[in-house]
């Protein structure tokens, strides 16, 4: 037990220090690979152990709670330091506020702690741990070749990689801490650790833009931290304990915990970059792509939804819960709408992340058995697919030196395998029988009774199809005869891309069993399991999704289509239709004045409707109104 916790939380910290100290590429890479292996193994070892609760008394002889107190204040001090360094009053004020609140909690209210269970691991935590350890590790592995290229491209003399990997690994430990912690003070500490890691990684490139965006991320997340710590104080004042499981399952009176729950939700919203806090996540896209993949799509932002899912049983049936549904659905729609207006690949991914997190929040708000199932499925598959897409974009970006979707036109001829994997990633995002769509299906069926929820989800879903489909389409947009040369990539890159894409596809096929073995226990006794599993078909009283049969049909259909492509390579290749003025070049026509003109084609970004500048203000206003509703409803 202790070993596992040690392995999952402390080992990454040690490995991180190792990265910082050994400034040799090879040793650093070895440390990362070993750490990744340990984490993956450790997470798998966790499976047979759960559920368990564990409260270490001391750590190398020191009372763990005292360590925590010290670390907490150290952390806030560091944040305060950055506040001063970047002359940001908000950060300074918020860190002081948090320190005061924490001090009040630690020194005036509580007696040094030790009554609550520190770590608790159930299936929900396990799912998150698996995501963090496996996907996170894969991303870290891919980051090794990526950062090498990255620095070569930026022509940096003294490598900043030690610092980078230090924070990356530190983050993995912190993340594991968040999902395993049961004592909410620990939870708060790890929560802040991830905030700090995110800040450091966003600002890694040290450009003016990176710094600015990092600072923005820090102050926005500090708001969340402040809300979090206020919730803790309120809870402790009212209940006298900070044991998560206890609070949720032994709710004395609903009325008491509404406000702290709303505050925790608020903290979640900032962490998951829901509107109106989306700007920090968008700014975070200046970071190297592995950072975006790890922190800003598959793991850290999941902390928010994880927290809300944790407390969901406690707020079941409350007005707060309904508000979260509407708020989540709104974010889903708004994120999708803004993604439509983007041509920057990473921004599309960022908005899509925000949008999907919104959908998960909406599910958590609906708070029925189907909805919670949907939320967990979405968390799992979103993590896999989105990490894959981020890594793809990163790889493409290093190759074509642009992250603009328009520049990826006809990428298939230049980077066939990467392009295919990207298309695969997109397909897993929007198409049945893949997991995300399964989750979306469950979400819609669950949300059908929420009037505003279903309308916004319906619209958001169509918008989602729009921005993904056109991206997948233009990757293939070039005439080619079917013969291509495989591009060269580092082994670790291939490993990351291929394992993630295979994972996304194969996990989807077994999603009914994931449901049976992982999600039903994760929902625990708070929700009745809803779907019956039969021949790989998920069925409940009002809906049915034939996962396995459809997957088999999909595989069959895929094989036919591949054969069709093989057949098509034998057909005559003609130039595309250009009104009869085409030349022998596929995209060139003979235009006025006997000149050759390139028939450019641009995607529709509908900037007049979905433009960022046009929509953001309105969406923020809407989000603020809804947030007020969430908090106001709690009061």
């Amino acid at each position: 037990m202790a070993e596992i916790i040690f392995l999952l939380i402390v080992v990454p910290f040690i490995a991180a220090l190792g990265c910082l100290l050994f400034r040799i590429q090879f040793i650093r890479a070895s440390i990362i690979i070993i750490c990744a292996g340990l984490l993956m193994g450790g997470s798998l070892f966790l499976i047979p152990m759960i559920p368990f609760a564990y409260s270490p008394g001391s750590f190398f002889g020191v009372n763990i709670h005292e360590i925590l107190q010290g670390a907490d204040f150290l952390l806030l001090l560091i944040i305060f330091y950055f506040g001063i360094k970047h002359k940001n009053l908000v950060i300074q004020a918020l860190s002081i506020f948090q320190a005061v609140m924490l001090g009040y909690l630690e020194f005036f209210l509580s007696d040094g702690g030790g009554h609550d269970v520190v770590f608790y691991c159930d299936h929900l935590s396990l799912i998150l741990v698996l995501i963090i350890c496996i996907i996170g590790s894969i991303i870290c592995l891919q980051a090794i070749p990526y950062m090498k290229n990255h620095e070569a491209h930026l022509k940096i003399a003294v490598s900043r990689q030690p610092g980078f990997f230090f924070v990356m690994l530190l983050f993995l430990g912190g993340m594991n801490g968040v999902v395993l912690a049961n004592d909410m003070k620990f939870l708060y500490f790890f929560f802040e650790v991830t905030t700090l890691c995110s800040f450091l990684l966003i600002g890694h490139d040290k450009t003016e833009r990176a710094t600015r965006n990092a600072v923005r991320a820090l102050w926005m997340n500090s708001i969340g931290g402040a809300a979090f710590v206020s919730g803790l104080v309120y809870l402790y004042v009212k209940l006298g304990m900070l044991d998560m499981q206890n609070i949720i399952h032994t709710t004395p009176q609903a009325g008491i915990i509404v406000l702290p729950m709303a505050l925790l939700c608020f903290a979640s919203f900032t962490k998951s970059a829901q509107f109106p806090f989306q700007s920090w996540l968008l700014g975070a896209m200046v970071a190297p792509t592995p950072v975006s993949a790890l922190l800003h799509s598959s793991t850290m932002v999941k902390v928010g939804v994880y927290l809300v899912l944790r407390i969901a049983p406690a707020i079941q049936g409350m007005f707060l819960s309904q508000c979260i549904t509407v708020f989540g659905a709104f974010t889903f729609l708004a994120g999708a709408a803004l993604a439509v207006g983007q041509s920057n690949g990473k921004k599309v991914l960022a908005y899509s992340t925000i949008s999907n997190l919104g959908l998960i929040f909406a599910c958590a708000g609906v708070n029925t058995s189907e909805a919670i199932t949907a939320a967990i499925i979405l968390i799992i598959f979103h993590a896999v697919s989105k990490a894959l897409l981020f890594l793809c974009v990163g790889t493409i970006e290093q190759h074509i030196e642009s992250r603009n979707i328009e520049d990826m036109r006809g990428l298939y001829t230049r980077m066939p395998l990467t392009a295919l994997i990207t298309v695969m990633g997109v397909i897993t995002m929007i198409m049945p029988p893949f997991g995300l769509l399964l989750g979306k299906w469950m979400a819609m069926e669950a949300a059908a009774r929420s009037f505003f929820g279903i309308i916004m989800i319906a619209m958001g879903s169509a918008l989602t199809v729009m921005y993904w489909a056109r991206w997948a389409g233009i990757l293939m947009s070039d005439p080619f005869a079917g013969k291509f040369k495989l591009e060269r990539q580092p082994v670790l890159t291939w490993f990351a891309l291929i394992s993630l894409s295979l994972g996304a596809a194969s996990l989807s096929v077994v999603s009914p069993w994931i449901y049976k073995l992982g999600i039903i226990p994760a929902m625990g006794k708070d929700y009745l399991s809803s779907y019956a599993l039969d021949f790989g078909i998920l069925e409940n009283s009002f809906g049915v999704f034939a996962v396995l049969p459809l997957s088999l049909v999909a595989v069959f259909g895929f094989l036919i289509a591949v054969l069709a492509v093989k057949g098509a390579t034998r057909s005559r290749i003609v130039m595309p239709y250009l009104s009869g003025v085409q030349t022998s070049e596929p995209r060139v026509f003979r235009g006025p004045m006997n000149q050759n003109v390139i028939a450019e084609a641009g995607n529709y970004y509908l900037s007049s409707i979905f433009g960022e500048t046009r929509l953001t203000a309105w969406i923020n206003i809407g989000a603020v109104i809804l947030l007020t509703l969430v908090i106001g409803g709690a009061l």
Partner: protein
Amino acid sequence: MSNTIIAIIIGFLVAPLVGGLISGLDRIITARLQGRIGPPVWQAFYDVIKLMSKESMVVNVWQAFCAYAYVSAAAIAVVLFFLKSDLLLILFIQAVGAVFLVVGALSSTSPYSQVGAHRELLQILAYEPLIILVIAGIYLETGSFKISAIYDWNQPLIFKLPFLFVALGYALTIKLRKSPFDLSTSHHGHQELVKGVLTDYSGPYLALIEIGHWYDVVLLLGFCSLFWATGAVGMLALLALTYFAEILIDNVTARMTWRWMLGYVWAMGFTLCSVNLIWVILG
């Protein structure tokens, strides 16, 4: 089990035949409305068989993949419909086909098919939410997304969900590529985009897409049939009336622009859906 197999066979083989026949009838009725005689009833089949036998010619081999994916998705959606599966699932599978049609069109560099593809996406944007809301309305009324349960409902849904039926009519018009919504591609090639998404498909692949369209027609009429599921006569009458209304609308309206389509369909469709949903929730 035998029922399942029969349903699969019907969905897989009979549905396209019905769809083709409907297209043939559609062309005859359109011709009659225009004072012409029109083609034979079987014309749609002649066209497809002819296209099948033509030289295989592609701009990009990826098109072949997309054509097959489109027709398979459309077929699976129809088969699932006949298996009385989940409505929402069927819609999503149908959407796979629509997306592959777009992806296939985007794989050609011709601006005509590129613009067509984007318009097709905008059409998806216009009709998909409506169908989802219609399905949600049906669920709110019958308490199930499963077609089997909906067909067992004791009274025709159209009495309770009339506005949703009209909203479904918008989706139907867009999906059947009827005027005023024949934006991305049109049945007759007198459009500013030539053939839009289908511009660079030819021969057998075009035939596949045509077959996929037949499946789509059957699927959409299937959706309409849910609204009068209590008797075969009533159902057929409703379907015939609906389809005739589609042809009529096709012939009395000009083709509109996508901006208008988005605005109009969203404004009208969402109002109709909202009114009906609120009615069902309150009533």
